[in-house]
């Protein structure tokens, strides 16, 4: 029944979003089976950490914004002997950092980074935090003032299963990674990969490297990943 409905719907769907023509009927049907809770399984938790660890050179100065319990910095302190500084607001994160020996400042990112001088870090990391900020663009700009390079990762709401979930389900998508409903989510500024790339182009920011988690694996970003990437990690610089 559902399949039959979809057959009729498909031309309509493609008209609404040409990107969906790339998706096979089987995939759509599989996705529909989980409508209401988009299956984004496969992305290993903190997959970004491994990528970031490869990007950051030994001895770099690293500022990790929204560093949680300091897992990434602890790793970088050990393997790359970085000069690391974490920033976290949640008490459990802050106490976790202190316990790990990761230096942490308990401050609110929504108050900006004005106390940090220009170019005082080589890398400023913003892992899975962008979408929780009140003024995400201001923070992105601040990151590129404070650091030579910024590393930003976020979930891509342009991913086709998320689009389909909204299109067919008619409710804000709830995913495994972001298991919140519209009213209780800390993710107040959801974005698509393409939104981010638009900002990059408009502000003449260079993308030095880009990685995505798509189709079950971590790989370099490709054309059209706005539809396929579940999560993205971009290294940007001025």
């Amino acid at each position, binding site marked *: 029944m559902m399949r039959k409905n979809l057959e009729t719907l498909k031309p309509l769907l493609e008209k609404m979003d040409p990107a969906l023509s790339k998706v096979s009927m089987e995939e759509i049907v599989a996705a529909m089976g989980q409508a209401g809770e988009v299956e984004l399984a496969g992305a290993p938790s903190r997959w970004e950490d491994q990528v970031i660890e490869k990007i950051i050179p030994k001895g770099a*100065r690293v500022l990790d914004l929204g560093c949680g319990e300091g897992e990434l910095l*602890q790793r970088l*302190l*050990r*393997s790359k*002997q*970085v*000069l*690391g*500084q974490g920033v976290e607001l949640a*008490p459990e994160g*802050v*106490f976790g*950092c*202190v*316990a*790990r*020996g*990761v*230096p*942490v*400042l*308990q*401050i609110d990112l929504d108050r900006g980074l004005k*106390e*940090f*001088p220009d170019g*005082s870090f080589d890398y400023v990391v913003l892992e899975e935090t962008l979408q929780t900020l009140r003024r995400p663009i201001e923070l992105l700009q601040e990151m590129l003032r404070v650091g030579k390079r910024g590393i930003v990762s976020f979930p891509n709401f342009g991913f086709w299963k998320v689009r389909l979930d909204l299109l067919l389900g008619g409710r804000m998508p709830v995913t495994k990674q972001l298991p919140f409903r519209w009213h209780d989510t800390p993710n107040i500024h959801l974005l698509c990969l393409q939104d981010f790339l638009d900002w990059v182009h408009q502000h003449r920011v260079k993308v030095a490297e880009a990685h995505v988690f798509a189709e079950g694996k971590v790989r370099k970003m490709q054309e059209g990943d706005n539809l396929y990437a579940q999560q993205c990690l971009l290294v940007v610089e001025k």
Partner: protein
Amino acid sequence: MSSCKILDRHPPAIPGLWQYCTAIVGYCPLVCQVRTGTCTPYVVRVNLATSDMAEITQTQNALPRVRRVADDPPDSPRSVGWTEGKSLRIVDGQVLALEKGGSISAIDVEYEMYGKLSKAKDNVVLICHALSGDAHVAGWDKNWEQTGRLYRKKHPGWWDTVIGPGKAIDTRKYCVVCPNVLGSCYGTTGPASINPATGKPYGLSFPVVTVSDWVKVQALLLEKLGIERVRCVIGGSLGGQQALEWALAYPERVERAIVFAAAHRLSTQGVAFNAVGRRAIMTDPHFNQGEYYGRPGPDHGLAVARMMAHITYLSEEGMHQKFGRQKKESDTPSALGGEFEVESYLRYQGQSFVERFDANSYLYITWAMNHYDAADRWGGGDLVETCKRLKSKMLVCSFSSDWLYTPEQCRQLAFAMCRAGRPVNYVNVPSNYGHDSFLVEQEPVGKLLESFIGGEEGGER
């Protein structure tokens, strides 16, 4: 069942004399939770006429955090037990030049020490006390009677909640040293000590001393004890400023430093609060230019100073929670007042302080507190330059309701370290206890102490 302190009565009241209450149960060997010093509140049924208790059940996080349940008695496995102040002559004959000029030719330092110094002498935790503190930081003073320090009879040291076997600063692992500061009145040379040149108490002829002088004297003490380097130096309030000064003056000798509820200098408002207390002492008819030893001293002035200061140690919401506007109604109201509970509390605080503190010491120590400015001392007024001296791992911790050293001031200190290129920890603990939080919030404070002091030598540079 010994005693209980009722925190909360649970409405609706059960008819009859018995009522369910949440209470803190006094020290009682039957209740092992209490013996080990945890502050878990219990729900008990209390006979309101006799205060007898029955039916103890433990509650889980049903209540806000409370002050400590019961002190760990000297025989508790978690107490450092009976303690004894020791005294060492640090300066004898030769002259110790002081920061603001002047010198003292004989300096004794009273200190307490618990736990065993390791062979490598690398397990020392140095505790710096605040304005009215002393070297007696944990355990029970066995000489309280001989030394006349009666306030120690019923209470353990001022930070007993976090120091002891198995506590946050575990004396099975660390050797804890706490010295009394120069100019104080608890065993270290101060204005009440006898000036060897005259055979009389120094009084106001005692030279002004600074936070830097205190730290210098503490460094000399550690040298005498054969301790080259400390694992961690810790202090709250004026003690926090000493911890900061330690890390600035002796960066190579301090592995870690924790600054609780303190900034690189006191705010103007803080100096103003001190001005009131200092004025009260100096205008007391018994002050006599500091020469009051052997006769009645400026007790009223000192008591008022303490009352004033005590207000700055609490917070508005904390005071409201503790006292509300409760008062004893009088049949014959008088403009002299004094009915409010908060009034009698402050009066009591003032009175009991007079019994244990010397007014001249109060003047010298508040002078040092007013004048300390780490940036002036080490960076020509520039705090970031100052912080470039640091080599220790630093933790700055503020408390949300502290209005003496506000979270913003502590945050600025932490940021200055960050701007100086030093990794730093800054934590703001939510609390209603105001400036006193570092003494009261044993759970978060204990957690920070334990993990920061115990942290491994990580990859951090």
